[in-house]
Every structure is written in structure tokens, then in C-alpha cells.
């Protein structure tokens, strides 16, 4: 099985560990991520202003060129997933905008590309029970909190990823890996997103509440599917520690890193040097590495 793959700018550099582990794991699981030949940044926000067509051009171009190469496009970054999927829906439904966009980018895209998230591939095409059978190093004893964030889930009628109030896909994934999933109420609350650039203190507070809630519900680690979320809840833990002196950091994994551990990837291949909070002590303590 082959999927066209859109990495997104951050996965190429600051979140290379996310990208690399995803590629390695896909090979072990029997599907290939075929990176798009030409791609640009998706724009990182779906334009909410209805008259902003310029901001629709980058994702539209991605969709159009992907459609020339295949029929299904996958991505890992939740924000890219959201931007691309929402743009796709807009192109399907708004004929006037579709024509304008196609005119400008000189393509003829009609909105018929299938957009699927890597986790959805794991659930629908591979199946979590199949996944379970491929575990070389099940993550027994690890209690991890699946952090969905917002862009994966909302708006529900366009994303259709999982129930927006009580999603379970990510926890099912963790359980397939042999880990214990820690449920916590803040798993669908926003990390602050780009406020880490606009009002960093506010983002710090959001991150503190999310991690605090996870820890309160027994989490030893957090799992994310978005480099924006990961920046806010991993790298910003140092900012949290400055404000809340008794805050105890916990590691944040990309879900493909955990998948990689469970599938027996070498620790060099897991890219932990890009994780802000070092996960090795925890993994060693659990006997997972």
C-alpha cells in the first residue's frame, strides 16, 4: 500500500524525529509513505476570513499536485491535516472559490483527493488488532496520556476524525501498543497554538493546565500528533518550571516515536535528541529501552 505523504515544514526540520519514525514504522507495517515531489508549507492556519483566498492557495496547490500523483494523501501534523482537509472541503462545496483558485494556480482540481491521517491509516487500513500482533517491545507498564489538541477534532463535521467531546482513537492506539492510556479532561483543550508567538505567557499557562491535568490522572508521559502542540507542551516545560516552581517535567512523545519503540526500532532511530524533556530515564525505568 502506498500513500502520498505531505510532511509539512516543521517535520522536515524541528520535528524530524516525528517524520523519520513515521517513515520507518510504515515500512515495518507494510505501507509506504511516498513524499510528494513538490510541496510547500500549507500555511499553518485555515483562513477563517471568508474573503481570504490567498491563504487558500498553498493548500490548494498541495491538493492539486497531489491529485496528479495519486488518490490518497496522508499527513502527520494535525495542523497540516486540518488545513488541507478543510481546504479540500471548501473546494468541493464552493464552486466560485474553486474556479478562482484553479484559475490562479493553473490547475483543475475538483476536490476528489482523499485525505487521511496516519493514525486513521493505522486504525482503518492496518487495524489496531493487527498492530498489536506486530509489537516486538510492547510498552507494558507505561501510562501515557494521549493529547489530541484541537485541530485533529474540530470542526467535527469537516474533520470527522473522532468524537470531538470524547475521542477514543488515540487511546485505542496506545492500548494496541501495550501501554496504559491515561484519560484526562484536558485532552481536547487547546495548547495555546500560535499564542506562543503572540502571548507566550498565555500559552505557558495553557500548557501547564494540560500537563497538570494529565499528571493528576496518572500520566507518566504525554503523546502528541502535532509539532505545534509538542512545542507548547514539551519545549515550554522550562517556561512552566520558571513560573510554577514545584512543577515536575514529564516527557512528550510523538506517537510515532512510541510506535517505533514498540516495533523494535533502534533508539538512535527514535530522534530523542529533539525531545526537549529527555524521555530516556523514563523508558529505562520501565525497561523499554
Amino acid at each position: 500500500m502506498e500513500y502520498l505523504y505531505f510532511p509539512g515544514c516543521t517535520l522536515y526540520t524541528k520535528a524530524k524525529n516525528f517524520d523519520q519514525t513515521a517513515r520507518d514504522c510504515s515500512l515495518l507495517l507494510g505501507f509506504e509513505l511516498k513524499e510528494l515531489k513538490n510541496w510547500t508549507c500549507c500555511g499553518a492556519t485555515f483562513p477563517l476570513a471568508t474573503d481570504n483566498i490567498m491563504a487558500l492557495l498553498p493548500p490548494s496547490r498541495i491538493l492539486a499536485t497531489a491529485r496528479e500523483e495519486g488518490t490518497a494523501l496522508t499527513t502527520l501534523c494535525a495542523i497540516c491535516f486540518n488545513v488541507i482537509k478543510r481546504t479540500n472541503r471548501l473546494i468541493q462545496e464552493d464552486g466560485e472559490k474553486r474556479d478562482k483558485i484553479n484559475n490562479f494556480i493553473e490547475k483543475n482540481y475538483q476536490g476528489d483527493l482523499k485525505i487521511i491521517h496516519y493514525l486513521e491509516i493505522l486504525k482503518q487500513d492496518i487495524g489496531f488488532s493487527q498492530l498489536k500482533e506486530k509489537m516486538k517491545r510492547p510498552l507494558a507498564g507505561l501510562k501515557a496520556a494521549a493529547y489530541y489538541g484541537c485541530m485533529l477534532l474540530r470542526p467535527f463535521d469537516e474533520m470527522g476524525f473522532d468524537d470531538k467531546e470524547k475521542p477514543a482513537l488515540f487511546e485505542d492506539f496506545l492500548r494496541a501498543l501495550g501501554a496504559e492510556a491515561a484519560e484526562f479532561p484536558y485532552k481536547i483543550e487547546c495548547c495555546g497554538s500560535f499564542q506562543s508567538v503572540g502571548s507566550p505567557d498565555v500559552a505557558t499557562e495553557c500548557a501547564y493546565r494540560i500537563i497538570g491535568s494529565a499528571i493528576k490522572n496518572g500520566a507518566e508521559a504525554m503523546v502528541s500528533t502535532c509539532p505545534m502542540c509538542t512545542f507548547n507542551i514539551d519545549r515550554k516545560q522550562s517556561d512552566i518550571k520558571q513560573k510554577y516552581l514545584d512543577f515536575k517535567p514529564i516527557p512528550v512523545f510523538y506517537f510515532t516515536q512510541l510506535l517505533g519503540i514498540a516495533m523494535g526500532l533502534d533508539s538512535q532511530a527514535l530522534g530523542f535528541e529533539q525531545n526537549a524533556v529527555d524521555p530516556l530515564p523514563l523508558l529505562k525505568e520501565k525497561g523499554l529501552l
Partner: protein
Amino acid sequence: MKIELTRHKVHNEFAKKVELISGQNLFACYQCGNCTAGCPVAFAMDVGPHEVIRYTLLGLEEEALGVNTFWLCASCLQCTSRCPKGIDIARVMDALRMVVLRKKERKDRIQIPEFSEGFLEKVPQIAFVSGFRKFLS
């Protein structure tokens, strides 16, 4: 704090512009406050999103644009997903941003030269691209 209302002041050009950019009907808001109640960053806002909508509907441009509410909005869509009247509040917040950023004064909300050196290296592209979209004119 008294305001005088006339048919020219309520739902004025400012309000209509916000409605146009956001594609939302501000009259539909019955001020239940659900958006504010569920907003993850409302704790830091001057007033909640429902109040800004109220200012806008009444045509109070200065009050509406003078608060930090829509600048702090993270576009997480929690408000939109729970509004009982189906109003896309996140779009209204973005529209207010656009009204300010599109003014001819071209006043950026964040000043790039003011970023500390380490900041530019630490923060991933995804944050900058979305941040610049939301805060630069």
C-alpha cells in the same frame, strides 16, 4: 458608560464589515456565553468572546477593537463547536483581527525586531507561519 443608540449606530458599517469577513450573522447571538465558558484562553482576556460580539452588534467599534480578546484567540474552534446557535465565533474573532490589520495604518500586533535572539531559533516554523498570519498586517 452611557451609549446612545440610533438606527445608524447599531449594526453599523463596522459591524457589517465584521459580518462580511466572518460570514456570520451577529444578530443570531443570544448572549448565552457558552463560547466564553469553554474558551481555553478566556482567563487572560479583557472580556469574553460573547461580549466582543455584543459590542460589535451595537456598533461600538472603539470598545470592540480596544480589547485583547480576539488577539488572544487561538482559533481552537471550541467555541464554534459548542455554540447552540451555530455561530462560528472563531471566524468572528479572526474577522476582528483582520479589520484591525487591514487598516491603512498597517499596525502589526507583534513586532518581529522585539523577539529575543534565542526565540527565533527555538520556535518551530509552524508557530511563526500561523503567528505571522494572525498578527501581522
